[in-house]
């Protein structure tokens, strides 16, 4: 009988706790909306370095100090999926990061708030932003859907010690593509067990190579054009260098989680990465002796990629004037300089770049220089689909399991089928 009481008492208690807890959840949610102190939800991804988080946290703190508005952080680990889930589900943040590559797709869906009226009201000047980074957030209707926070270009990272071991120095690095591939072959024979160049098999890292022969990766109607013979021809040398010569490897092929791990671990002479790797190398691989330089020319022309991320406002935000206050605050000269310096990223404002003396910084100068000629990471509304299909199949081409032509043909066909389905 005692046991009976105990069990039934337990069950009742459990039921009560459960009911209470569920009700509590609901209550907590609603109190968040109607509280006395205002809160903005800000969505972002963590980025590549702890410094970036530090810079961002300082931004948030400064904003709360200046305005009294609290910040609720929403971190995206899988941005494309989670932001979409949030937009569909109506749980998206007030202000969030938008990568230039997805701006077109988000803007045409009508989920971003145009900033023009706010900018006009506050007489917000835009001339200080680098034009390509500002234009990246201008929609096809001419309205402005975000303001750039920073940008990045790519560069060639080299390991000084490994070059020296092979009997070279940084000044021996060739300046043209054909010479560079030949140089990789020499390095391979001189440095057994070391990968001459480690790359990431990503569309964002290969797009500028693909377009170097004059073709665009999308057609006029925004569909995938990856199977264009000119694109195949442009990418073939890089793929052959992996599949045939093994002078180029993807970081996964040599068992690393990222190109930075391979480069930092001294397993590769070169790595083609973005400027974001500079701060990562400085903190995680302090002993490494490395430098950066511009990419070799492709078909005689300088080429690179430029990536930019901006702050955009949710069209469904409940507090648009505060959201604008936030965007204005974090893209201001003072805050931008704080953020760019702490996170060691390239600022979207020219005056900030000057104040930081980036052109004289030997690690950063190649990246700033590349901004003059780089290809923006923007290609219509279907870029995500095209990218996913490319990245699904391209590792097999690098491994030599299928020919590049077949890989790109398949990637194109399957992307275009999907694009048709979305119409």
């Amino acid at each position, binding site marked *: 009988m005692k046991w009976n009481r105990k069990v039934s008492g337990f*069950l009742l208690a459990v039921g009560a706790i459960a009911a209470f807890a569920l009700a509590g959840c609901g209550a907590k949610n609603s109190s968040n909306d109607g509280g006395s102190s205002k809160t903005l939800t800000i969505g972002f991804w963590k980025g590549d370095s702890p410094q970036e988080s530090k810079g961002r946290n300082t931004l948030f703190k400064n904003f709360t100090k200046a305005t009294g508005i609290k910040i609720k952080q*929403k971190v995206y680990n899988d941005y494309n999926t989670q932001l979409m889930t949030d937009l569909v589900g109506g749980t998206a943040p007030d202000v969030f990061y938008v990568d230039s590559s997805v701006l077109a797709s988000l803007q045409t869906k009508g989920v971003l708030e145009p900033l023009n009226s706010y900018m006009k009201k506050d007489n917000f000047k835009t001339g200080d932003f680098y034009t390509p980074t500002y234009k990246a957030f201008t929609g096809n209707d001419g309205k402005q859907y975000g303001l750039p926070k920073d940008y990045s270009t790519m560069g060639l990272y080299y390991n000084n010690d490994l070059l020296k071991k092979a009997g070279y120095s940084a000044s021996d690095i060739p300046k043209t593509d054909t010479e560079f591939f030949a140089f990789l072959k020499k390095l391979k024979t001189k440095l057994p067990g070391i990968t001459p160049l480690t790359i990431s098999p990503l569309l964002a890292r290969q797009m500028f190579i693909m377009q170097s022969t004059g073709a665009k990766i999308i057609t006029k109607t925004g569909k995938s054009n990856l199977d264009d013979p000119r694109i195949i021809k442009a990418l073939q040398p890089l793929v052959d260098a992996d599949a045939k010569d093994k002078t180029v490897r993807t970081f996964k092929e040599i*068992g690393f989680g990222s190109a930075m791990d391979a480069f930092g671990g001294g397993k590769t002479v070169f790595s083609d990465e973005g400027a974001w790797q500079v701060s990562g190398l400085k903190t995680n691989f302090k002993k490494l002796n490395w430098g950066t330089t511009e990419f070799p020319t492709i078909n005689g022309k300088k080429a690179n990629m430029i990536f930019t991320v901006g702050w955009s406002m949710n069209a469904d935000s409940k507090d648009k004037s505060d959201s604008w206050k936030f965007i204005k605050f974090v893209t201001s000269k003072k805050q931008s300089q704080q953020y760019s310096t702490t996170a060691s990223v390239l600022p979207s404002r020219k005056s900030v770049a000057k104040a930081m003396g980036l052109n004289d910084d030997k690690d950063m100068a190649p990246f700033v220089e590349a901004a003059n000629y780089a290809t923006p990471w923007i290609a219509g509304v279907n870029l995500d689909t095209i990218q996913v299909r490319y990245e699904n199949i391209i590792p097999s081409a690098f491994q030599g399991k299928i020919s590049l032509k077949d890989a790109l043909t398949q990637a194109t066909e399957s992307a275009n089928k999907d694009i048709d389905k979305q119409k």
Partner: protein
Amino acid sequence: MQTKKKRITRTVAYVLLTIYSIITIYPFLWAFLASFKPYSEIVRIGAPLFSSNMSLTNYQYIFTQDPMFPHWIVNSLFIAIVGTALNILFNSMGGYALARLSFPGRRTLFMVVLVCIMVPSQILLIPNYLIMKAFGILDSYNALILPSAINFAYIFMMRQFFITFPKELEESAQLDGLGRMGIFFRIVVPMAKSSIATQGIFVFMGFWNDFMRPLLYITSENKYTLTLGLQSFQTQHGMQWNYIMAAAMITILPIIFLYIILNKYFMTGMRIGGEK
């Protein structure tokens, strides 16, 4: 002759079981030991299983660098405990009603329950997502708990149990003036404790180990469950196996402790298969 043959069979049995036990334990052992080693020793080909550099550094790193980990543990525990409690309550009540109470539509309801056991979760994912959007419970614990507050297989199991339950006990209690609810909680539930423990354990494991639904329904990092947190931890840390293995161990160990404590019920609980 006969005994010699028996001895051989027995030896073969031991050898087989030992080999399979090693196959089962080996990955865990590797993962467990790796969680104490520095990265450089984990990825060195031919490195020995044990190392002199073993320490708690990886665990320390996780709890300091990823301040969300304790949060995720609490979230998972909360969801699993509340979810399990609701399941035990509702499944037992539903099973009892289907077995003992007379009400119109009982047969139909029982048939519906039987069919629902077969419905795969994939077909429910999208509509449930939209329904929860309409209720405004996406990105909250409710999104994980409410749709799973009952489980058809265990409603069926409880019904099967209550149908064999002697009626006399309830009848005498009824004469003592107890109502149905009273009878259920005071007389019936205590007698069903092993069935309840069984479903409790499985339901708890289901909540604790669920990956797909948290992935879809939860987008705020502070509301992640441990499984989702573990996966996001992996995407952020690439292949830094030392940290990832330590994180994996944090998710595994609580369940193993629970298992050691409740071992008896686990084994009897496995009889559902035989009864069906």
